[in-house]
């Protein structure tokens, strides 16, 4: 116990947060406003450090990013229960200020993502992080690799249909 927590204390958390924080932020940003995503990232990183200090997770025995995304999934689930709206008011204001075309595709994709079955949506959102391998995603979701691949295939098909339908409706 003592050796495990002392190992976690040897980590340079400032650097870890600078490296890992933006990756976790992008995971949240797929479904939340910028401000919400930033808050949820902070919550995730705080829980990560706390668990590491308590010896619940051992950073030397596993990829820290995997632990972070595992925590992020629960944080997102909790946040969705309290804040089900996909786009907050602050996010709408950002759309006015930033590149309109880019933001419109973002809004369309987020709306489409919300219409996906939850297991498919989770995989697509995790795929946003390009450093996570499919095997990592399978481990995170506790699913066989083959199941993850078939979910991706189906999710892409469904997304494509939703996006085409939404484009046609405009």
């Amino acid at each position: 116990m003592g050796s495990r927590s002392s190992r976690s204390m040897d980590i340079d958390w400032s650097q870890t947060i600078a490296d890992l924080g933006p990756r976790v932020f992008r995971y949240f940003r797929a479904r939340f406003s910028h401000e919400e995503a930033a808050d949820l990232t902070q919550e995730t990183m705080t829980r990560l450090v706390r668990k590491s200090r308590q010896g619940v997770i051992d950073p030397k025995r596993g990829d820290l990013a995997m632990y972070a995304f595992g925590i992020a999934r629960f944080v997102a689930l909790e946040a969705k229960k309290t804040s089900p709206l996909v786009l907050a008011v602050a996010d709408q204001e950002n759309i006015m200020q930033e590149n309109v075309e880019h933001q419109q595709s973002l809004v369309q994709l987020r709306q489409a993502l919300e219409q996906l079955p939850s297991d498919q949506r989770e995989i697509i959102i995790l795929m946003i992080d390009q450093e996570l391998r499919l095997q990592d995603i399978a481990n995170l979701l506790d699913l066989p690799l083959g199941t993850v691949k078939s979910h991706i295939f189906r999710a892409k098909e469904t997304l494509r249909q939703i996006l085409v339908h939404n484009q046609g409706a405009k």
Partner: protein
Amino acid sequence: MKDQELDKYLATLRAAEPHAADVERWQAAIRREFGADRRSKPRWMEWAVAGLIGVILGASLFGHSNPPPDENSANDATLELVVTKLN
């Protein structure tokens, strides 16, 4: 819609970046909650605690190997009584 178009949509999500101020805020929150130093306790404190435990353990073991003075006194008294009775 082709795969490339779908990838273009996903790329918009991959392009999302936090502000520098966000990262600084996360780092500050960790420092606030867990302390600025990487280690919560200095190493000398760990050695001091280990030394103290060693002293306590050593003292208790050493203490058991020698009978307490009271016991010697009791033995002397018993011996004295036996000698008196024999006389």
